């Protein structure tokens, strides 16, 4: 499967900003998305959209408002959650009285893909994967399978999640976020539990044509486990299966997020990646959330295209002059693991 176009909305105006002093810092411990003006969304509709819907539709339309795709495949852990609690609050406050259905209709997890189908009049395959930290990876896998069945098709694949106030409260109570205020420049030195929360929307156009592609998604694998050995084993067999004899990983794109509870997993994966593999981190730019790995794939695409990356993203240099094979590893809450292997065309 080949990636041809990308678009993303994230906490940074420029996700490839070289100067670490110029990157946006968390505000109130949150790396909030810098939203564009959404010129392609009709104003009447835009006004009624919750943030994740706005970001998802807003990131997709630049790619599919003019180019027709054969289907829409999204991953989102919590799309609609904000409207869900808005409706819930209305229900509790008005004691199940006469409620307006607006929030209820927008509260279903499939709301972004549904809106995109509606706005672009796309009657093709339309699905939303919501499996938390593997929602985007399942969307990616789905697209690969759709392309195996329908070789000449193109699909929109993406991942979207927002920091909704209600979800933020729940995750804060659950201890998912750092309790201390921390600069994202110091994120990886923090040695404390929790991450800095982020949000965003990332979209890709994928098909089977190598012609003019930015990157190739070679393989995806996922696992649920809190067993470090099992994760290492799975990675070894993944690499064995998907790398040719003598082929190595040039760049390891790590989902390291400053949470000292998941750091051992990232370190274990680093140890397998190879001695001359560059290690790159991105979550100090994006923050972490269930579908942040979609931004990881966006980064892999840019690195392959530009063959350069901001210095502050590097955890370890490599002697290689160019990179082709990129391994993306993401760990969500210590239990959901994903490996994505991406290469230059």
């Amino acid at each position, binding site marked *: 499967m080949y990636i041809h176009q990308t678009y993303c909305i994230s906490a940074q105006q420029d996700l490839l900003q070289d100067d670490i002093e110029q990157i946006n810092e968390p505000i109130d411990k949150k790396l909030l998305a810098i939203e564009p003006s959404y010129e392609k969304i009709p104003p009447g509709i835009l006004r009624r959209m919750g943030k994740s819907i706005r970001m998802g539709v807003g990131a997709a339309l630049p790619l599919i408002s003019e180019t027709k795709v054969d289907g829409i495949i999204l991953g989102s852990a919590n799309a609609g959650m904000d409207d869900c609690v808005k*409706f819930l609050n209305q229900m509790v406050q008005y004691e199940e009285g006469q409620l307006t259905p607006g929030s*209820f209709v927008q509260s279903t997890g499939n709301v972004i893909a549904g809106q995109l189908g509606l706005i672009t009049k796309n009657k093709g395959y339309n699905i939303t994967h919501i499996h938390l930290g593997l929602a985007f990876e399942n969307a990616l896998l789905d697209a690969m399978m759709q392309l195996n069945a329908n070789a000449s098709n193109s699909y929109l694949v993406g991942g979207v999640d927002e920091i909704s106030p209600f979800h933020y409260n729940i995750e804060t109570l659950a201890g998912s976020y750092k309790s201390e205020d921390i600069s994202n420049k110091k994120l990886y030195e923090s040695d404390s539990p929790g991450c800095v929360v982020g949000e965003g929307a990332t979209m890709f156009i994928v098909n089977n044509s190598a012609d003019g592609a930015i990157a190739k998604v070679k393989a995806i694998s996922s696992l*649920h486990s809190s067993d470090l050995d099992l994760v290492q084993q799975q990675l070894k067999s993944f690499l064995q299966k998907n790398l040719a004899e003598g082929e190595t990983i040039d760049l390891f794109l790590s989902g390291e997020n400053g949470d000292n509870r998941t750091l051992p997993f990232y370190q274990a994966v680093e140890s397998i990646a190879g001695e001359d593999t560059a290690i790159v981190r991105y979550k100090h730019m994006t923050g972490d959330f269930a579908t942040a790995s979609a931004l990881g794939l966006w980064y892999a695409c840019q690195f392959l295209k530009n063959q350069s990356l901001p210095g502050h993203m590097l955890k370890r240099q490599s002697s290689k002059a160019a990179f082709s094979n990129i391994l993306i590893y993401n760990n969500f809450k210590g239990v959901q693991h994903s490996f994505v292997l991406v290469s230059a065309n």
Partner: protein
Amino acid sequence: MSRIFITGMGIVSAVGNSVAANHEALKANTCGIQYKLDLFPSKYAGLLPFGLVALSNEELLKALKVTESGVTRTSLLGLYALNEALADSKISTEEIQSFDTALIGANTVGGMCLTDELYNDANAKTDGSDYLGSYDCASVNLFLQRHLKINGVINTINTACSSSANAIMYGAMLMNNGYARRAIVGGTDSLAKFTINGFNSLHILSNEICTPFDEGRKGLNLGEGAAWLILEKEEDIKGKNVYAELTGYSNANDAYHPSSLSDEGDGPFLSMQGALKLAKLTPDKIDFINAHGTGTENNDEVESRAMIRLFGKPPAFASTKGNVGHTLGAAGAIEAVYSILSLQHQEVYANLHFKNTIPSTGLTPVEWYTKMPVNHVMSNSFGFGGNCSSLIFSKV
């Protein structure tokens, strides 16, 4: 593409807590929808009818021997039906935990059945309940993964009321693409104050027992339940009970309105047509359609019109929403079990509470329990967001 067979089924619904109980209830025209709501306090208790599973949370916890805290009714119903499906298929613990066994489940309610806890946690009014990790829909399959120690691909799908049809489809795709050798697929949803008020705000809940495809239909009744299928490949089914073959599936979008179907029913038409194409069947080969048939003004008329558009004269069809209500994320899986029962026993079940045809379509659903040859059954599921899916099961 390898052939995919169903070797195990499990179900819990308003008409019974096992496949056998559901089968007897369908044959006997049993309606499980009642003016009774004791799961939580609600002003609609006694005023609106619901299709509740006759097992309390305490009974479920005890029967399932679940001691973990923070497990929701949605998860418990899911595990209850899943245990039956796993035992029925006789797949071993080793196979369940093998790296090539996938678990693909759908639900739309997740932990939203816990209105008070969610209200307090989401609005930061407490120090946190036991359910902080249980509100999102993925929590159900994460619980099942932990409980059964599943190592293969795991996914949760939400396409509203067509969710579990897509879970079945995704499991089959994983098997066809070499990502799984077998797949556990299905869905679960529990009744929630949230969904009652949501559907009520759209004025599509009937205060009477629902009457799918009837001229005087007044809306849907909400239900709850869960169902799972065990999908296995041709090479793995020797010596096993094989209930049916999954021969067709398709997903399309109606692209018309967030919460209602287009007049022409493009989405339903395309999903039914796509499933036929994959199954390499002409429309005349379908003997019976398990219709989505929710009992709303919009759905039943549009679904009828789309059936007429595709089939000319549609085959025998019926909705089982009059038995169990609309079980949302579980509906596609529950109705898959009912479709397979029709194939297994060569019979079709009555569309309950039907009186008069909708004048504009002139279609009459199956009115009585009938023994008849059934070789191919189509099952439809349509949802908010224009998400339409159709499955085809075939006799083995």
